[in-house]
């Protein structure tokens, strides 16, 4: 008797659940994902002083935290990302080695960060030492930490599921040789970002069917003609496919608005960077629709 009762109840509730799901799939279903991002914060925890000649009274973690919280209340489907160079720039780093930076980012509920060249400033071991203070994760697809103490702390990519939308995020780092002392990065191996990206988009887009692919990059926005061989975010966007958004860092580039680049297939890629020192928070809102007629019309990008 008990068993039958159980079956009945389960059957009824499953049916009801199916009904709800089935009906919702008839009408167009709009999903909203908000990507928030920072880069090159460089240990700037306090706002700049009022008499600072360049950025008076700008930035500050306590303000950024409040702003992020307000946005989360508007739309809970937020991904909060950082594009590296969390470390170095104020005495907070000299005194605490990045502990406070990681703790505050954890409190703000950062989801993911990539690794910048300055994150090696206390050596790769100095970075490893701060890992217990980070509840967020690190991605880098082209740094191989296998033979360093960072082994196991960094994934090539991470897939998030927010509001039914699958978001794949992979990380890219800048070439360390010539930029960071070898005694700092030790046996960290750097791989070509373009080739790495080809692998990443295959895994994220083709194999895992992500609805959105984001590259979290510390390669730099663009370089002058003298450095024309150097890979940048703008170049990466042109030379690859299946990336929707590149969030960059390293060059401390202040943009009036995100840049739109045509990729290898002629599709639009958004490239963004928000300067440095936590002066700005980047915000990219993606709206998804499962109505085929609407999707066929392409997307509108408002920047």
């Amino acid at each position, binding site marked *: 008797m008990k068993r039958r009762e159980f079956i009945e109840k389960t*059957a009824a509730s499953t049916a009801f659940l199916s009904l709800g799901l089935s009906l919702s*799939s008839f009408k167009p279903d709009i999903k909203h994902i908000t990507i928030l991002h920072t880069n090159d914060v460089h240990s700037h925890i306090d706002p700049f002083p009022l008499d600072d000649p360049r950025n008076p009274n*700008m930035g500050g973690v306590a303000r950024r935290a409040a702003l992020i919280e307000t946005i989360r209340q508007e739309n809970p489907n937020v991904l909060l990302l950082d594009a590296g160079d969390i470390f170095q720039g104020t005495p907070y780093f000299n005194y605490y080695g990045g502990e406070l930076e990681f703790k505050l980012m954890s409190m703000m509920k950062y989801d993911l960060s990539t690794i910048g060249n300055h994150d090696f400033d206390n050596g790769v071991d100095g970075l490893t030492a701060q890992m217990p203070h980070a509840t967020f994760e690190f991605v880098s697809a082209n740094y191989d930490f296998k033979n360093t103490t960072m082994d196991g702390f960094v994934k090539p990519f991470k897939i998030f599921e927010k509001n039914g939308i699958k978001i794949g995020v992979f990380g890219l780092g800048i070439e360390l040789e010539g930029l960071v002392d070898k*005694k700092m990065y030790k046996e960290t191996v750097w791989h070509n970002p373009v080739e790495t990206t080809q692998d990443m988009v295959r895994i994220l887009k083709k194999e895992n069917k992500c609805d959105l692919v984001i590259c979290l990059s510390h390669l730099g926005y663009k370089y002058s003609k003298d450095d024309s061989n150097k890979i940048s975010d703008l170049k990466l966007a042109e030379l690859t496919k299946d990336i929707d958004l590149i969030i960059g860092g390293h060059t401390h580039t202040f943009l009036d608005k995100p840049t739109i680049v045509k990729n290898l297939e002629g599709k639009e890629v958004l490239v963004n960077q928000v300067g440095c020192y936590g002066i700005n*928070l980047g915000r990219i809102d993606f*709206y998804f*629709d499962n109505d085929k007629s609407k999707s066929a019309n392409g997307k509108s990008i408002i*920047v």
Partner: protein
Amino acid sequence: MVNLKNYNDVLKLFVIFLTFFLSVSCSKQNYNVTKIEGKQIAITDKEKQSPQFENFIKPYRDHIDQDLSSVLAYSPETLDKSSGKWQTPIGNLLADVTLQRGNTIFMTREKKNIDFCILNHGGIRSILPKGNITSRTAFEIMPFENSLVVIALKGEQVLELVDYFIATKKPHPLSGITFTIGKDNVAKNILVQGKPVEKDAIYYVATNDYLSNGGDNMNFFKKGVQKFDLNYKLRNILIDYFKEVDTITAKNDVRISEE
């Protein structure tokens, strides 16, 4: 008690829905991006501060403030980098202290003496004010994380260094080297540790890692024959000097003279 008929109805309904549900789920929901909005939000005092974060940061800030504010030395006068054409007391002080403290390490490690030191005028970011001197003063003068390196330069490159000095028309801090700028704007009587420069001799030059890599167009450093990394931040050199002395004394001897 469960009515069997009722149960069957429910089961039928269940099967129908399950079939329907599965058929819907099997054709994967395809979500496509229809709209993207991108913007940048400036973090200003218009944002309220999160008290939770402010309270969390405070003990860290207080500790640093207290440490940076503790008095290490006293300066009887204000030293300003804009107070001379070819040399300044603050530049002399920085180059002298870097040479002296660097030499102690270099001697221990390499059994050699540093011959002279050159830094860049642009790297002095603040005055050394009259009165109490703290670690904060050192952070203000040298906010960068540059560390001390010694480059082995041939005499020929020492001459290039002097040409560079005259061409840039700036009082780059120098210690251990003296010369006279002739009326024709060419250097003469170039002495390192009081001895004339020989083109093929090797000179050990203390500078920072940024300049040693050609920073500030100091390209002569790229022709160095050997590089020694002393792993000593320039700011820490200054802090250690402040800790060592009671009163700061900047020398004002003539290092560069004009004809």
